[in-house]
């Protein structure tokens, strides 16, 4: 009896072990060749899709479609123009920018552009998607109507010439029109007109369709298959751009597969092992992974090119945040070096005071002397002095930690909470470090990490003390203006409780007597200034106001996206040393051209 019991048990264990030891040869992806997707012809990318893919409809709400139909990913559907974030130039995609001034932007459609069903891409397709907003107020691009009053079509040298008239009666902003031209994807009007007709002419019904079965696209790749685990794209060998834009060359990877991971460290592990070729996620200590073939734009800190600024948005309707001295003290107290080094592994260079980044694209609008005069002096002692001068008194506990702070009248100040979504580890770390430094200087703040279900509704409603946010997170032609607009514009100012889409901190209330009308007049004027000297003057003035009033506190510079890749399977990625293309992942905007330049490592 014993023997048979033991042997039964053992044989079961052994069987399981045997089963599990039938492992395929080298490489977790089932070998080098073989399988439907040979490794040397497939590009594995990750980080742009987190949830289960449910729709590939380019007309759906912006957050609904899966990669690559959401955001500026031009693999399937394309935009008219591409913005090269390295040079600042507008590059051609479906069209070419002919001219740009304060009244209109002119784009010539590439006459070679075709849809995957053979029909040519025409001005009708462009007009269709831009004008959807006129007929259907619930269209995702309905807001374009505020910026573009009309699209005129003419034929010039056999090509469709589109003239986008800047809407002078409404927003009057040619910068944003340029943004739209490089962001809005062109869809096949013949397909969607038919769908609208068969769905009772209601856009809401068409938005619900998945459009996931051999969609009609114009881009270099098309959707092959997808599941909750991954999305698979296949190269289109009849892509019009191969001949027209790339000298007859096709992009190097035949397949692009985007696995959907659920936890942060999966990406790091994937890149290190070479299972992923590129990943869009925050990976700490990327420098230590160079030995595994992981590359970034720069070989040393800060590794990435700055693109966006995560910052603390301060709700100036709440005491004591309504006192600009208090806000400036907060900005002074934070140890930005620690934030960069500890929270984001040193991925940020030194911060310029204000909202203008020291990059090729924006640096020309920055005046270090002027900003130094307006910026607050950094350091814990400086912060303490500012607080003391403004009448605030900090009371510390015997163990050295902050107990509470009182204002000029002696009244105890409430503890301010910094709201951020739980689980975003780089943001959480930044806030933890900032909170610590501020408390040491006598500022009573604490971390307030909440679930997304609390964060997202709170943001537009002003339902927070301090909010962590990364406004203007994409690098677009309208920067740095759009960053200022996102933080300081009083255009749609409403009280807390109602929704605001920019300036959620409620800075500069137009009904208050301290209202500074210079801010809004500068914001309205800058998009129309053409002379570079006046433009710089305007930006410097706006930045100085920002520094004086400190409605938000920039914490670090982070890239628009984390541009990191693996050299194990594909090489010749653009880097600072090999800068033939911008530091953008090969599915983002102008970065798409990288796909034609990649070389297979197995040679």
């Amino acid at each position: 009896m014993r023997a048979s019991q033991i042997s039964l048990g053992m044989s079961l264990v052994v069987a399981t072990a045997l089963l599990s030891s039938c492992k395929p040869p080298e490489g977790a992806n089932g070998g080098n060749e073989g399988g439907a997707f040979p490794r040397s012809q497939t590009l594995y990318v990750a980080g742009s899709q987190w949830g289960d893919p449910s729709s590939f409809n380019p007309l759906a709400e912006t957050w609904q479609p899966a990669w690559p139909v959401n955001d500026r990913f031009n693999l399937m559907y394309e935009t008219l123009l591409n913005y090269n974030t390295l040079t600042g130039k507008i590059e051609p995609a479906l069209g070419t920018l002919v001219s740009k001034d304060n009244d209109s932007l002119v784009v010539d459609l590439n006459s070679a552009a075709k849809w995957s069903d053979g029909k040519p891409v025409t001005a009708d397709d462009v007009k269709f998607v831009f004008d959807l907003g006129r007929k259907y107020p619930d269209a995702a691009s309905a807001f374009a109507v505020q910026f573009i009053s009309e699209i005129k079509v003419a034929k010039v040298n056999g090509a469709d010439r589109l003239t986008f008239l800047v809407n002078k009666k409404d927003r009057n902003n040619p910068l944003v029109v340029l943004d739209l031209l490089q962001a809005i994807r062109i869809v096949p009007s013949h397909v969607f007109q038919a769908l609208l007709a068969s769905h009772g002419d209601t856009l809401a019904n068409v938005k619900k369709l998945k459009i996931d079965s051999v969609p009609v696209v114009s881009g270099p790749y098309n959707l092959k298959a997808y599941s909750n685990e991954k999305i698979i794209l296949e190269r289109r060998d009849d892509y019009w751009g191969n001949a027209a834009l790339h000298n007859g060359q096709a992009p190097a990877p035949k397949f692009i597969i985007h696995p959907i991971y659920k936890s942060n460290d999966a990406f790091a592990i994937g890149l290190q092992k070479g299972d992923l070729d590129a990943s869009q996620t925050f990976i700490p200590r990327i420098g230590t992974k160079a030995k595994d073939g992981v590359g970034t734009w720069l070989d040393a800190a800060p590794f990435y090119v700055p693109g966006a600024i995560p910052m603390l948005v301060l709700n100036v309707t709440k005491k004591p945040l309504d006192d600009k001295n208090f806000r400036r003290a907060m900005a002074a107290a934070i140890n930005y070096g620690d934030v960069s080094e500890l929270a984001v592994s040193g991925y940020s260079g030194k911060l310029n005071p204000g909202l203008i980044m020291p990059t090729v694209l924006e640096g020309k609008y920055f005046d270090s002397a002027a900003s130094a005069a307006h910026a607050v002096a950094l350091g814990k002692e400086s912060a303490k002095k500012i607080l003391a001068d403004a009448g605030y008194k900090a009371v510390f506990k015997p163990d050295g930690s902050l107990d509470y702070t009182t204002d000029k009248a002696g009244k105890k100040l409430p503890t301010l909470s910094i709201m951020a979504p739980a689980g975003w580890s780089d943001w959480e770390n930044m806030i933890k470090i900032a909170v610590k430094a501020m408390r040491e200087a006598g500022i009573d703040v604490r971390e307030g990490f909440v679930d997304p279900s609390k964060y997202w509704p709170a943001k537009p409603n002003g339902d927070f003390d301090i909010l962590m946010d990364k406004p203007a997170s994409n690098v677009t032609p309208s920067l740095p203006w759009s960053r200022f607009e996102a933080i300081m514009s009083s255009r749609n100012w409403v009280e807390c409780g109602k929704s605001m889409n920019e300036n959620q901190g409620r800075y500069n209330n137009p009904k208050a007597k301290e209202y500074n009308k210079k801010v809004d007049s500068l914001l309205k004027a800058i998009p129309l200034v053409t002379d570079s000297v006046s433009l710089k003057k305007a930006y410097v003035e706006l930045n100085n106001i920002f520094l004086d009033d400190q409605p938000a506190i920039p914490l670090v510079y982070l890239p628009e996206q984390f541009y990191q890749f693996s050299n194990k399977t594909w090489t010749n990625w653009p880097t600072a040393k090999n800068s033939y293309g911008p530091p953008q992942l090969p599915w983002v905007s102008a970065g798409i051209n990288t796909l034609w330049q990649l070389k297979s490592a197995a040679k």
Partner: protein
Amino acid sequence: MKILKNLLKSPMFVIGIGLFLGTLFLAFLGPLFANMSLDRVASSYAPPGDGLLLGADNLGRNYVALLLHGLRNSLYVGFLAGIIATTVGTLIGIYGGFKGGIIDDILSVTTNLFIVIPQLIVLILISASLKDGRSLTLIAVIIGATGWTWSARAVRAQSAALKSRDHIALARINGDGTFAILVKHILPYLASYVFMVFIIQIASGILSESAISMLGLGPMDTQSLGIILNDAKANGALGDGIWWGIFPSTILITTIVFSLYLINTSMEGVFNPRLRRE
């Protein structure tokens, strides 16, 4: 007492209680010897050595300090959750098992309800509606309030078995009310069993807290063993081979839970002589 003497004869008990008391010592006396400051003292994930016994975390803080803080908090959560779960579960179990009939059925329905509603929903929704968010106490209360079902069932089974015993019938003839019978005649019999249930509930409270923290839903603004593990995972310590981020807290959690299991098993051996080693 005789029970204690018997317990001490069992090597399992000695080891278990020894380990557990050791961790308690660490939690309460450790701060006297170690530097408990959570300031930044080194670079991100500095390895052990150089004055830092267990290295630094991703924010440059001393792991020894973090672990001691975390240990205390985890023990607190475990105990509080254990007390709540055991109390609620025992009360419901005893009463239902003894009374039987409709009351037992209603209490069973209640127990099943609590089993069926996922702990996660309760946790997120309650913490979302509170201004202070998730504190250690709130987490402990929620773990206790959702974890008592197991004790209720176990105690109910025992109580139901007991109620048909003779001395209960005698007490009833005597005219004792339900409550008096429960307190005087049933509870003493079950005391040892309830104590064992309590031990398991503490262990499960500690495990639950670390599981909840691993989902990122742990207590805010504070440390716990689960939070330390979660931070390590979220900051890529696993992939980078930063073992000092993961092993110490794992060892601590495992040790505490293991010691509690040992205590429980050895008690089982003492209270139920047949289980003792022959």
